[in-house]
């Protein structure tokens, strides 16, 4: 299905690039960071965009896996991934020097509103993954960033070093209280929203967290962007697996998102679209 506007828009089409594993390390409990030599994707990728990674060939799982790019620089991209199933277990086993291929850059990433002086980033768990490039970009643009970073436990906090390097303020929360505040990240997020009066809020994490942050931002009258996660097959807009219900109709997370304006998202309907 061709989206309205797609045909006339001067979209930059994605690349199919063979990449080489540079490093692949465990960085937190159940979380890996893989660095890939991907010069063409690295040169073009924007914060919040993703790549569609073919992890293995000749295995019993066929499909690619979409991963947001955590950091990019020079000819290198870095991906944070949680080991959840067959695909990510295979990814964790890939060794430096091995080759894969990626399609990318894909999707619409974060946008920085004109004139923004202060941003709030709210990340839950692996929701920090698409925010590494974002916090670095904000620093480049001179936008002050506050970060609320949450995880189930201290051992599962990720990307703290990146946030601390670029943000003005980082507040932690863990479900078990082993680091930072005891409880969900939405509590410090709400406080930072009131104290720092950001011009824009960025949220990524479990959908229930994103929805809560979107509500707080709306109540405060601050624009909010959310990065949504969906199962994807093609990753390029053809298969319609990754639909998101929005106020302007059904959108595809892969090419209309994954970053959406939070007030456009129909949160309940996004799980249960109308049946014909």
């Amino acid at each position, binding site marked *: *299905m061709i989206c309205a506007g797609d*045909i006339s828009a001067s979209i930059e089409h994605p690349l199919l*690039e063979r990449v080489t594993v540079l490093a692949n390390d465990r960085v937190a409990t159940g979380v890996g960071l893989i660095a890939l030599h991907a010069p063409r994707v690295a040169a073009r990728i924007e914060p919040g965009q993703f790549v569609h990674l073919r992890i293995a060939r000749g295995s019993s799982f066929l499909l690619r896996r979409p991963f947001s790019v955590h950091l990019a620089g020079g000819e290198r991209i870095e991906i944070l991934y949680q080991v959840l199933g067959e695909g990510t277990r295979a990814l964790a086993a890939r060794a430096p020097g091995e080759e894969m291929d990626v399609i990318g850059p894909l999707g619409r990433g974060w946008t920085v509103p004109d004139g923004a002086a202060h941003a709030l980033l709210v990340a839950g768990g692996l929701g920090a993954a698409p925010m590494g490039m974002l916090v670095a970009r904000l620093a480049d643009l001179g936008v002050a960033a506050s970060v609320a970073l949450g995880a189930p436990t201290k051992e599962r906090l990720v990307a703290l070093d990146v946030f601390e390097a670029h943000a003005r303020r980082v507040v932690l929360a863990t479900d078990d209280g082993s680091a930072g505040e005891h409880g969900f990240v939405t509590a410090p997020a709400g406080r930072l929203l009131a104290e720092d009066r950001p011009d824009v809020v960025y949220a990524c994490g479990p959908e229930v967290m994103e929805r809560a942050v979107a509500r707080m931002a709306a109540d405060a009258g601050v624009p909010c962007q959310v990065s949504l996660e969906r*199962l*994807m097959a093609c990753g390029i807009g053809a*298969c319609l*697996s990754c*639909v998101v219900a929005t106020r302007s109709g*059904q959108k595809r997370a892969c090419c209309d998102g994954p970053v959406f304006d939070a007030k456009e998202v129909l949160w309940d309907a996004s799980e249960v679209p109308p049946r014909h």
Partner: protein
Amino acid sequence: MPPKSPRDTDRHHEQGSRTGPDVESSVTDNQTGTVDLRVKVAGIELRNPVMSASGTFASGFEYAAFVEPSRLGALVTKGVSLEPWAGNASPRIAETASGMLNSIGLQNPGVEVFIARDLAWLSTWDVPVVVNVSGHSVEEYVAVVERLDAEVGIDALEVNISCPNVDAGGMAFGTDCSSAAEVTRRVRAVTGKPLIVKLSPNVTDIAEIARAVEAEGADAVSLINTLLGMAIDAHSFKPKLARAVGGLSGPAIKPVALRMVWQVSRAVGIPVIGMGGIMTGEDAVEFMLAGASAVAVGTANFVDPTATLRVIDGIVAFCREHGIARASELTGALRG
């Protein structure tokens, strides 16, 4: 060399400058050399036997960065219905061993938007266009076919009587000889365009269905659509698909598809378009040996957006290796 189309073959070069392939992998030019890839199906001459399978390639726009539509034997669009369909609830896909389940539910913008947007774009390319038609009722199939019959940019229609993912219509028409025959008869009456009927594997005897649609004037049959399946997440005690059941595709279904193509091609006189788990040129050759005149590549497009080109190249390589001058010689060449 591919046949010259009556359409302006230069137009795609302008398009190509915007969305031309930018693929670094080892996709080679489709150097056919001495191998003649042309095949004829349902009265249409195809420059090679490889089509896109409906629902896996949209209308080709999203793939144009990887595959110029004019490289394909034919471009088969995603199913189009009379009115817009919203499709099913999410999750709509689940990965399974060597395959995947989908229950997209034929989400599409309806025939008018399809004509104005997708077909207008497709018409700028030199490629035979096959439009896949969906309906909840016989009347809806007829209405969509009547509407599409008026469009010059369409080379053939593929009637989908085999989608397992809609509540009314869809597969229901393809699992019974009399309803399959009725849909075929009714749409045949309102179009002079070549008519392909896409068959469901979820039947006891697919050859019987094929004979029924042939008798009502189908110019070709395409098979197989997906196999009805299910995946369960034991940890949550829930089905993986929101709709519980969906259609299985990918290499997992290839043996079933080959068997059915073989059975149908022996039962009917019209051409068979074979599909079901084709990932490589050799897979495509197997379908042709089983009796297919052409093939379609589906799930493979999701894995590798250049899959159709690799399959074409693979057929060429196979023919060269085996000293076969014309790809059409492969059709039904299975030895005893």
